[in-house]
């Protein structure tokens, strides 16, 4: 992909990246893409744990075999339980948090309801050394303004017993996403970032839209997305250079 070099990629000093956010903000798509990106660019092992106990469909576990081909290990319930929407957290998740090995991405369910699972794992986490990242989509009804987003953030912090360390700006409208949608979202994420005093760690958007944009306008690292959690009638976009 020719556009890749134009953008600064996201970088993390911590081994554990916890992806949370409002319901339907795009956590799973971001998690899957982040895992794929790290697997391609770093020599360290990458593990993704699907901790979504809220959604029945469109979960990162659906991309498990896709990720396996890139060497990413998925921690998901086995057997029939992979299809359940039950609060199942397999024991391996706790082990991975205690000893991540390489990078561990935790894809957590939406809102405070989804984030509650972190509270039950709280004791396994080291005192520092993890990132709690808010996925922010300003086109979602309950995070479309500053007030609503701050409310969701404080509810997630309360339920998880953790503090935010970063914001992922992921504003989109699925197929109707334009550069304008992305930039308006970035503006709103900046406002959240300034008020909550939490930095924006990266912006994520689909490659097709990013390629139409002036990189100068985006003053943060960027994760280009190749959509992986598709609707049954959608076909995967050709990935280019991979």
């Amino acid at each position: 992909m020719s556009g890749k070099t134009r953008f600064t990629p996201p970088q993390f000093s911590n081994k554990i990246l916890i992806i949370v956010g409002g319901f339907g903000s795009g956590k799973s798509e971001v998690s899957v893409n982040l895992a794929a990106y790290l697997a391609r660019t770093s020599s360290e092992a990458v593990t993704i744990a699907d901790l979504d106990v809220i959604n029945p469909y469109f979960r990162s576990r659906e991309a498990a075999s896709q990720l396996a081909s890139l060497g990413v290990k998925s921690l998901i319930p086995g057997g029939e339980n992979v299809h359940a929407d039950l609060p199942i957290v397999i024991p391996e998740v706790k082990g991975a948090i205690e000893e991540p090995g390489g990078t561990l991405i935790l894809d957590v369910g939406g809102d405070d309801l989804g984030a509650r699972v972190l509270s039950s794992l709280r004791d396994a986490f080291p005192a520092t050394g993890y990132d709690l990242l808010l996925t922010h989509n300003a086109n979602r009804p309950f995070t479309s303004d500053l007030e609503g987003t701050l409310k969701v953030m404080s509810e997630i912090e309360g339920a998880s017993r953790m503090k935010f360390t970063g914001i992922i700006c992921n504003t989109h409208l699925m197929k109707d996403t334009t550069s304008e949608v992305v930039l308006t979202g970035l503006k709103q994420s900046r406002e959240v970032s300034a008020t909550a005093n939490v930095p924006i760690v990266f912006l994520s958007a689909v490659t097709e839209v990013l390629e139409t944009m002036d990189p100068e306008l985006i003053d943060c690292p960027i994760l280009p997305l190749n959509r992986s959690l598709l609707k049954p009638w959608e076909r995967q976009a050709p990935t280019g250079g991979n």
Partner: protein
Amino acid sequence: MAKVLMKGNEAIAEAAIRAGANNYFCYPITPQTEVAEYLAKRMPEVGGVFLQAESEVAVGNIVFGAASTGKRVFTTSSSPGISLMQEAISYMAGAQLPCVILNIMRGGPGLGGILPAQSDYFQATKGGGHGDYRLLVLAPSTIQEAVDLTMLACHLADKYRNPVMIIGDGMIGQMMEPVEFPENYTEPELPTKDTWAATGAKGRKPRVIKSLFLDPYKLEDNSVVLYNKYQQMKKDEVRFELYKTSTKNKVLIVSYGTMARICQTVIDELEEEGVSVGLFRPITVYPFPEAALEKEATRKNIDTVLTVEMSMGQMVEDVERAIARRRPVEFFGRTGGIVPTPDEVKKQIKELIKKKHGAKTRQSTTKSKKKG
């Protein structure tokens, strides 16, 4: 209004509020629980009623009672929960009460699974409860259409004083798409409810809302009134959509809901390969668009009609009935929560065409015999 990104369940919930259905009763069940989640937050903002009951049996009867007051009432559930509501639905149809019921269908029978299905077609269209009654049943295929049809459902329920059901496979509830809500929503005028609604009998004669008629002549009269309403629906409320139907079509697909969108992908891709296929998508599955389907299916070049469903074949019976043996009707479906892939459907169509052409050269006599 600007577009927002919403999950189907949330969008339908918001649409109900916009249409003034501010009385919502529910019991949670996957894959429709987000409707309740959303309305638990939104109803207090609009001064509406949100009540989670102890079971779907209770929900059905609360809806029955609430609908008697003439207020707009809305409930949602998924397959097993809808089964539990059937008694109340039959009572409401009998007592001529309006309400809107959403069924986000999952795999069945029994508890089944939690993945998308369309296997409640019989239940929705043929009467899940007892007695001579029908529901007006709408089947959206996009989230925007789910919004529009939810608002329409509220209107039609009042217009016919009959329960209206919206059926969506699990995908309609769970997927996210950008939607827009109408800026200024105005409904066509409706007759006053102040001839039948239980609004307090102070200063007037009490009104009785019931489905019990011990006198068989009165019970028959009531069924005739209902029957006449359904005949009216057949005249005025039939809705469907055509996609790439033309005189070149060899095959006509009949499919509804999100299954129709998978078929659209198939049709687009086959078109590029030089194979012409059209789609007939019923939007009202009761009343079923019989006459329109018959017309489309019996075009000169169409060899085969293929019904594609996320079930073992339920709508296919209505398709056969509409076409009345004038074309062969084939069926393809997956069930239990498995959503057919575009490739599977495509393969099926190619095989049908191959079979047809093979049959033409090899067994022309048998074919003409069949035709006669």
